[in-house]
């Protein structure tokens, strides 16, 4: 029996329309029969004769110069078909967001003269069998000179930190700025008006997507030279376009087939396996599979970024927040991937669902010698929400105001100007707070129950 949460139609009654045939009804999932019978076809459930396998030799260092790469022993392993280095990658330097104009291309498909994180791919081995590919990858010999590594976002930002990026800064440059900025009102004036100032620091560790199906693809060369990419990417054309650019081949040479994914959560938008599998397939003219092991999925696929967030709030004794200043640091790890975009998304989310007249934020996308992070469910927002909502709780306690009333006092409403200068509309924070309070029997005074998102808050003018 389907478990369905009730819809409370008493809220926003006049805005809700009805009279639909199938919208708003619980129709069965069209994919469920395939799932329960084992017939749903994931990319790895297709078989191809003469399938070859790709495995990677990865950096043993956090940050090092590569002095030598010796592939001779790898080539001799029985079953090894090709050993692929950066020289085999037509356009080795890329960044996935170049499709929407993000620069520079800061990541190599295969490392050239240096590595920026432990686990960075250096050599790919394609072989008849998975075992031969693993053996071949293990026999690659790389000579390194270790370089000083940076592991902390604030250390990376300091002027005396070693610069690890070719572009010359350990942070993504947003149109000349060291951070994505939010400047709204006058935050210092807000602090001057405030009765109380509260400033705290929050942080998080990286988080794995941990989908049950690991990232992977099978590339099958066609008679006409085109390559069909069977993949579990979250974005078919995004993968196609990025792969074609790396292969330096016409976009029409590639065909992506996918759409059935064993969990993504943001971890399958990085275009990590398709380019090398295509190169291997083109070089061997055989179908090639490149799929992450569980260890690779955990260790070298991008995690959710570790973040560090400082929030300083100026608050009046009656509970109104009059100024909020946020310093946010996203640990992008060694390469950009989707982090410049996620950091902007974080900026647009600040200062949370509250109307605060003076907001100042610097959201930094910082490079370190850690595993590159990238998109994950709630990108830019999940950790910020942890910080903001912890902050709200602490201030409410410090002012001895009920935590829900404190939120209602500051809740954004229709017509309010957000810090990124977009007029709020369709807001409903007040109502979800009121409804959640009712769910748990948390009493709210009549005047708070009478609040509505669609009527402007006079307290804030």
């Amino acid at each position, binding site marked *: 029996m389907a478990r369905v949460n009730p819809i409370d139609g008493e809220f926003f009654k006049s805005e809700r329309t009805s009279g639909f045939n199938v919208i708003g009804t619980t129709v*069965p999932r069209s*994919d*469920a029969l*395939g799932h329960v*019978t*084992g017939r749903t076809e994931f990319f790895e459930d297709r078989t191809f004769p003469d399938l070859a396998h790709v495995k990677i030799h990865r950096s043993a260092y956090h940050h090092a110069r590569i002095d030598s790469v010796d592939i001779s022993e790898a080539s001799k392993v029985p079953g090894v078909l090709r050993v692929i280095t950066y020289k085999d990658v037509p356009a080795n330097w890329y960044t996935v967001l170049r499709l929407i104009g993000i620069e520079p291309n800061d990541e190599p498909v295969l490392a050239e003269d240096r590595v920026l994180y432990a686990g960075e791919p250096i050599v790919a081995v394609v072989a008849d069998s998975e075992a031969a590919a693993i053996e071949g990858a293990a026999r690659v010999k790389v000579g390194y000179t270790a370089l000083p590594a940076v592991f902390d976002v604030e250390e990376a930002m300091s002027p005396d930190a070693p610069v690890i990026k070719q572009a010359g800064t350990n942070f993504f440059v947003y149109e000349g700025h060291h951070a994505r900025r939010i400047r709204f009102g006058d935050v210092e004036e807000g602090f001057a008006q405030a009765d109380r100032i509260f400033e705290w620091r929050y942080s998080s560790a990286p988080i794995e*997507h941990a989908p*049950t*199906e690991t990232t992977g693809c099978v590339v099958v060369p066609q008679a006409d030279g085109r390559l069909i990419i069977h993949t579990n990417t979250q974005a078919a054309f995004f993968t196609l376009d990025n792969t074609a650019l790396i292969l330096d081949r016409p976009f029409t040479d590639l065909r992506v087939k996918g759409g059935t994914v064993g*969990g993504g959560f943001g971890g399958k938008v990085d275009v990590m396996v398709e380019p090398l599998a295509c190169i291997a397939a083109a070089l061997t003219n055989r179908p090639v599979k490149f799929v992450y092991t569980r260890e690779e999925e955990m260790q070298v696929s991008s995690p959710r970024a570790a973040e560090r967030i400082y929030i300083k709030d100026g608050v009046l004794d009656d509970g109104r927040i009059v100024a909020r200043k946020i310093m946010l640091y996203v640990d992008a790890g060694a390469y950009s991937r989707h982090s410049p975009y996620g950091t902007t998304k974080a900026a647009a989310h600040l200062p949370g669902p509250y109307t605060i007249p003076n907001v100042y934020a610097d959201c930094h996308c910082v490079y370190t010698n850690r595993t590159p992070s990238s998109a994950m469910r709630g990108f830019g927002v999940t950790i910020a929400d942890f910080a903001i909502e912890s902050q709200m709780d602490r201030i409410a306690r410090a002012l001895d105001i009920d935590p829900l009333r404190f939120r209602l006092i500051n809740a954004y409403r229709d017509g309010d100007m957000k810090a990124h200068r977009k007029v709020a509309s369709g807001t409903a924070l007040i109502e979800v707070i009121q409804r959640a309070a009712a769910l748990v029997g948390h009493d709210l005074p009549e005047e708070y129950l009478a609040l509505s998102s669609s009527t402007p808050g006079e307290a804030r003018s």
Partner: protein
Amino acid sequence: MTVKIVNLKVNGVDKALMAKPETTLLLALREHLGLMGAKRGCAQGACGSCTVLLDGDPVVSCLVPAVAVDGAEVGTVEGLADGRTLSDVQRAFVDGFATQCGFCTPGMIMSAEALLERNPDPTDDEINEAISGNVCRCTGYEPIVSAIRDAAATRRASAEARV
């Protein structure tokens, strides 16, 4: 490398395949017999996506060498439905919205089938324990536990009806 002939009764049908010492039961099913229901989620026995029944008991087939189970009976998700008629567990998973991405589903269902075969009226604790080796990253488990509860009730009702 010694290649051996392995005989298995898979979903009631006799099968033979050539297996190397390192060929796992999972690879034997998927790559030799074309049964793709069991999934490779970790190849370490930790995610349960490859769960099948070996002589009636649930096993993670990625850790079982095929040559070690010569002569065994193997049950996979492909053998549950009778034509287009789903098993009670399969039906309960569909009706209960107990699937999202579907990757863990075949293994989860095989663990549930094994449980209900030996325990027709499991408590929630027993259900939890039975699927504790099956990782699901999407559903939060509650709909799965609920579906197994529903399937158990359906099975008991039809068993009573037969008496």
